[in-house]
């Protein structure tokens, strides 16, 4: 007779840099039910946004989450710009792509490192995070912030990239790729790593679509969906091939992220090369009215902001639906039936960001 075990997984748990609780019901070490309990990082950001003025909200939006902070400010600015019919200067659109893609590289390296940590590969974790510091150096050099960049603003960007910094970025990217080439094969080809990833947490394509998976999780299951294809910012003028995999397991998700590192580096290079000259910002007057659902492809997938203005400096409603929020139902699906040892791996593989999920 098997008796069921119930254990809390989180909120204070070392594998989760962020607090969320999964209540795991297990038979021996096999998970039969996993239910999330959230609200440990709910700050009430949507309400705060209504109380601050819409320019201050740029700073607030950046702090929805520190990992892809730039994407949040970018999406917010794009939403407000579309409400106010602001035409963003071309150079600013390209600059946004540069920072967004560099941000994506940092975010992917971060989560790949955490993934390595989740399956107990400390060296790999350390190496990936050490390379990530090179990315942070780029950000610090170009924006003055390591994590929260604070460069996006309504109507454009605040800082320019000079030819020298552009060269610096290119050199740094080469260095990053050189160092990654020594480390990434271990993540994609090592026996012990594959043992922990291949066939773990399988999410079939139809389930992925039905449960609303987004970003690398969806793409790893073969759902071709990448909002960059819709051509916001300067993506319409750059070439890139969407990365998809079909297996739908943790390994596929890892591969998607690994391959996206290359796409992002490539996009950065393209954007730097094709960078038009001109101003980086336009003046913005008035207040937003109307409603919009602004969308953008974040490192973790599709990010939605519903912004409703009422003609005053305060917004009527600001709602955030982040990719992790969409990826939680697929996570529950993947967890059922897996082994306890695989819980951290599967959880990290959706790249959970609770902070933006709960706002």
């Amino acid at each position, binding site marked *: 007779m098997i008796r069921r075990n119930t254990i809390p997984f989180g909120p204070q748990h070392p594998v989760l*840099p962020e607090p969320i609780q999964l209540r795991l019901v297990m038979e021996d070490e096999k998970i039969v039910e996993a239910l999330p309990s959230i609200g440990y990082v*709910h700050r009430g950001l949507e309400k705060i946004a209504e109380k601050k003025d819409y320019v201050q909200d740029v700073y607030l939006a950046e*702090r929805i989450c520190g*990992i892809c902070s730039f994407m949040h400010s970018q999406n917010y600015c794009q939403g407000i710009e579309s409400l106010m019919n602001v035409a963003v200067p071309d150079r600013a659109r390209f600059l946004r792509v540069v920072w967004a893609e560099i941000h994506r590289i940092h975010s992917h390296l971060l989560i790949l490192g955490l993934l390595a940590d989740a399956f107990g590969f400390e060296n790999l974790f350390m190496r990936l995070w*050490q390379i990530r*510091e090179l990315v942070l150096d780029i950000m610090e050099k170009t924006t003055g912030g390591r994590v929260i960049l604070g460069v996006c603003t309504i109507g454009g960007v605040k800082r320019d990239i000079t030819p020298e910094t552009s060269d610096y970025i290119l050199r740094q990217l080469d260095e990053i790729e050189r160092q990654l080439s020594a480390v990434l094969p271990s993540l994609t080809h090592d026996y012990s790593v594959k043992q922990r990833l291949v066939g773990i947490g399988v999410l079939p394509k139809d389930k992925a679509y039905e449960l609303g998976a987004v970003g690398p999780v969806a793409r790893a299951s073969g759902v071709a969906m990448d909002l960059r294809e819709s051509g916001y910012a300067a993506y319409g003028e750059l070439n890139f091939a969407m990365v998809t995999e079909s297996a739908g397991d943790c390994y596929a998700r890892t591969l998607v992220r690994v391959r996206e590192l290359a796409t992002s580096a490539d996009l950065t290079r393209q954007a730097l090369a094709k960078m038009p000259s001109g101003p980086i910002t336009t003046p913005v007057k008035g207040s937003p009215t109307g409603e919009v659902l602004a969308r953008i492809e974040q490192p973790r997938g599709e990010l939605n902001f519903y912004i409703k203005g009422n003609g005053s400096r305060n917004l009527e409603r600001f709602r955030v639906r982040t990719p992790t929020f969409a990826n939680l139902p697929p996570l529950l699906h993947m967890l059922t039936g897996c082994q306890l040892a695989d819980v951290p791996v599967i959880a990290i593989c959706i790249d959970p960001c609770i*902070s933006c999920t709960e706002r």
Partner: protein
Amino acid sequence: MPAMSTFKKSPWVVHFNCNSCNGCDIEFLACLTPVYDLERFGILHVGNPKHADVLLVTGSVNHRNARVLRNVYDQMPAPKVVVACGVCAATGGIFADGYNVLGGIDKVVPVDVFVPGCPARPEAMIDGIIRAAEILESRNTAAITSVSCRKPLHRCTPVPDSPKPV
């Protein structure tokens, strides 16, 4: 035992993310990695409050995580210190106005070191933890008995040992 500066040489840190936007968290994690390498000070990142000397908190307190923070703090053996990382942990930062933000973590646990910044830079965190380790050293072992255990455990009633799950 000679009063060796053992605490200063091996402060073990447990990290709890309260209401943080992740900015401070990833900066703390960055401290552990090769570029900043906290372990060279003997600092170990432990997952378990029972093994920790330093509680490093990022983010502010909300209604749900206040109790968790308190529990984590209570489960640490004395002597212990608390480091609040980032302005959220100090005052609530940009979120201080939120309906679900109770304020800085000093609302729930006694804080010894505040590290400003949004996010706090790794260098600032290193300063903060080293400072905390010094405070730890100065807290003498005799104070151990004055651990905070908020409530008396009196109301104990016998219960069946393996009751059905609630």
